[in-house]
Each structure stands twice: as structure tokens, then as C-alpha cells.
């Protein structure tokens, strides 16, 4: 696979790793947070931790949109799906997320709710066209990567004059999450670990560009290196971060230059701005209420907004008491530090956000790395 295989080359991985080992100064620790769930997954899947020196520690951030979806929002989706005549279309990633009363979308489906897994927002629109007598709702989740496709289908639905299609919008924003990690009221309770720099998300950045991270670099004096999706990209970004720290720099660097520019994708951004606006506040699982961190449909598109269309009311459901996701998402604790990790909370029976999706810190550690703790 061109532009894929070359970025997974084992020999190159070793040589980048050797450079990191040489650059990482003995006697100090480097903590870097990778924000994007895809990076967490790449690190686990390829065993990149084994290639890094002991004093370079990767901290997993809240970059998995499924993981940060609060229980209340899943409850709302389930309630929608149970209404007569409704077809709820969802990405497959959401179906096992545990909600209230021991339910999940998958369990609700087993009980008879018409819930269908789709690969793309366009599939949901197609189902609405094929079944005009059903109310088709698209359960939209994701960071800035997935938001433009949702914007497209809302506009398309309007063009086609569709009367049976709507979107249950749970799109969230990356920069707000990063800011919240660095500075929030919960920091006092949960503590915070000194994060020396960030590995910036790959595909979110293709849309928003590298420009939005400049604020963090300046304001908090933390380097940000945007990394591509492949394991060599991640390793290279770590090397670049180590060098920035050593040289006392706090800049935005772009390792993913083959797909990310400073401005990003102007067309996609314009589409999103046309269809969505900021919610004043939105609750994130594990992080609590975060201001200006999520999107909703603009008034102009109200008829396609499932929350308004179906008169849905917001629900706030607290996480399980034993769940340490809040601290884990901030990098203060590791999955193995959580009391219920690997026992009550496993990928098959997830209790909190970090275990829910394969990109979550706990799920990744359980699936790929728990042998390290067991040894």
C-alpha cells in the first residue's frame, strides 16, 4: 500500500528510535501527551513503547470521541431508537458503549429497537431515502474530522427536501479539550502531571490546520508536533518533541506535512461553519462540563436537529464511583492504577469511557499491553 507501507518500515523505526535514545537527556523525564485516539491505537498496535527509552513517557489523552461521550447522551440515543417508527443509524464504534440500566445500543437492538450500523453519514441519508415512512436519525459523533461529512448530509437533506431525516449531534472540538486538560477546576482534585508537549492529532489537523495549536504553544509554553497516523510518524514526532524540549522551544511543528497545512481544509471548515454553531457548554465523560467545546445545528437547520425535532431533554448521568477515567484522561493515573481495571471493567464489560472504544487508554492497554503489568 503506497504511502502506508513505507511509513511502517521496521528498519526506519529502529533508526528513529536510536535518535530518540541519543537525544533524550539522561537524568530527566519527558512526558508527552498524544491526544488522538488513532495515535494511542498505533502505539499499542505496533508496540512502540518498547522502542522508546524509559525516560520518555507517553500519556494518553482524551482523543477518542466515543470515550468522551457521556452516559446521558447514549441514554438519549437509546430512548430515541426505542420510539416507534425511528431508525437510529450509528457508527459501529458506539454500539457497545455502556449506558444506564445496564443498557447499550447493542442491547437495545436486541430488545427490538431499530438500530443500524453505518460506515458513513451518507449511508444514513440513503436509508432515509429508501424508507420514507420511517424517521431516520443519524447519531453523529466525532471530532473535527467527522464533522464535515455530517454537515454535508444535512445540506443534502435540505436540498432534497427530506422530511424524515435528522441528526443527533455530538460533535466535539479538539482545542477545547486540550485547554481543559491544561487548566480546569478538577485539576485540584485529580492533580495534573507536568506534560512537556503534545503530539497533535493527525486527521483533525488536516481539517483545522496547524494554526489553532499556536495558542497552546504560546500561552502554555508547550511544544506541539502534529503527527501523521502511521507508527513512523508518531516516532518522528516524539523525536521532534524531545528536541524542542532540549532546546527550550515551544513551537508548533508539522510532521504530517503531506496532509496538513497551516490553514487546513478551507472548504470543509466553511461547510461546518455554515451548518453548526458552538454550544455554550457540553459535558464530556471523565472531564465534566467543558465550555464552548461542542457543536449543535444552527437555527436555520432546526428541522434536521433531532434534539429539537423530538423534544429531547438533556440528561446528566454520573460515572461509576470506582471509575478513574477522569484522572486517566488527564494523564494523572495509568489504567493499571484503576481499582476495577481488568476485573469488573474490561472491553467486554466496560464501566467507563477509557475502556469503551479500542482507542481508549484502558482498552488499548488491556488489549495490547496488559501482559506488561502481569509480568
Amino acid at each position, binding site marked *: 500500500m503506497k504511502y502506508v507501507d513505507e511509513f511502517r518500515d521496521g528498519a526506519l523505526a529502529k533508526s528513529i528510535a536510536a535518535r530518540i535514545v541519543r537525544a533524550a537527556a539522561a537524568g530527566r523525564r519527558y512526558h508527552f501527551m498524544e491526544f488522538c485516539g*488513532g495515535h494511542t491505537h498505533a502505539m499499542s498496535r505496533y508496540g512502540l513503547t518498547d522502542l522508546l527509552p524509559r525516560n520518555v513517557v507517553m500519556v494518553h489523552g482524551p482523543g477518542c470521541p466515543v470515550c468522551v461521550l457521556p452516559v446521558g447522551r447514549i441514554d438519549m440515543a437509546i430512548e430515541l431508537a426505542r420510539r416507534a417508527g425511528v431508525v437510529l443509524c450509528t457508527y459501529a464504534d458506539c454500539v457497545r458503549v455502556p449506558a444506564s440500566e445496564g443498557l447499550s445500543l447493542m442491547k437495545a437492538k436486541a430488545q427490538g429497537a431499530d438500530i443500524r450500523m453505518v460506515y458513513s453519514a451518507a449511508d444514513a441519508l440513503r436509508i432515509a431515502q429508501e424508507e420514507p415512512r420511517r424517521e431516520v436519525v443519524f447519531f453523529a459523533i466525532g471530532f473535527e474530522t467527522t464533522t464535515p461529512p455530517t454537515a454535508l448530509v444535512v445540506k443534502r437533506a435540505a436540498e432534497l427536501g427530506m422530511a424524515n431525516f435528522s441528526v443527533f449531534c455530538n460533535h466535539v472540538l479538539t482545542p477545547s479539550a486540550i485547554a481543559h486538560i491544561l487548566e480546569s477546576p478538577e485539576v485540584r482534585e485529580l492533580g495534573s502531571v507536568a506534560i512537556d508537549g503534545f503530539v497533535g492529532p493527525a486527521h483533525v489537523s488536516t481539517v483545522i490546520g496547524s494554526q489553532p495549536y499556536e495558542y497552546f504553544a504560546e500561552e502554555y509554553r508547550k511544544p506541539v508536533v502534529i503527527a501523521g497516523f502511521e507508527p513512523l510518524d508518531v516516532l518522528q514526532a516524539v523525536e521532534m518533541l524531545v528536541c524542542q524540549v532540549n532546546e527550550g522551544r515551544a513551537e508548533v511543528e508539522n510532521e504530517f506535512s503531506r496532509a496538513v497545512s497551516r490553514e487546513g481544509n478551507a472548504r470543509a471548515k466553511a461547510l461546518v461553519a455554515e451548518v453548526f454553531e458552538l454550544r455554550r457548554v457540553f459535558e464530556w465523560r471523565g472531564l465534566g462540563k467543558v465550555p464552548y467545546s461542542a457543536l449543535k445545528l444552527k437555527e436555520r437547520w432546526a428541522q434536521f436537529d433531532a434534539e429539537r425535532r423530538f423534544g429531547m431533554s438533556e440528561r446528566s448521568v454520573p460515572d461509576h464511583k470506582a471509575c478513574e477515567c477522569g484522572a486517566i484522561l488527564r494523564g494523572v493515573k495509568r489504567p493499571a492504577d484503576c481499582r476495577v481495571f481488568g476485573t469488573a471493567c474490561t472491553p467486554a464489560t466496560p464501566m467507563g469511557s477509557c475502556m469503551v472504544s479500542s482507542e481508549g487508554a484502558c482498552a488499548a492497554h488491556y488489549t495490547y499491553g496488559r501482559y506488561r503489568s502481569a509480568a
Partner: protein
Amino acid sequence: MCLAIPAKVVQLKEGDQALVDLAGVRKEVSLALVEGVRTGDYVIVHVGYALQKLDTREAEKTLALFAGLAAEETA
């Protein structure tokens, strides 16, 4: 969820659609979010949509960076 993959555009179709190819696997995706794409270009595909065109020159520069060959950093 975060997964996206670079694929080669092999055929442009009507309505902003295109056929992309990755090692012989073909998929129809939407080009509605990108501009100026031609057959032979590589695009990054995510949930059925092309998000961005791949800059092949930058890709080569990044590979050189991996090998420790680039004199300047890409920024």
C-alpha cells in the same frame, strides 16, 4: 473511529464521487470536501469521504526525515 487511509483516485464519477484504489481494493468515496482532485492523485479517506489531498512531495520529504537525511525540518 479515527482511522483514515491514503488511497489513489482511479476514476472520477458524477456527483462529487470517485473511485479510489488501495492495493487493488476499490471503494467509492465522496470528493465533496476537497478541491481540484484528478485521477492519479492520492487522497486521505475517512468514513467514506476524502478529507485532503496527499502532497506526494511532502511525503517524500517526510520519508527522508525518517532516515535522518533532511537538512531542514518540515514545518
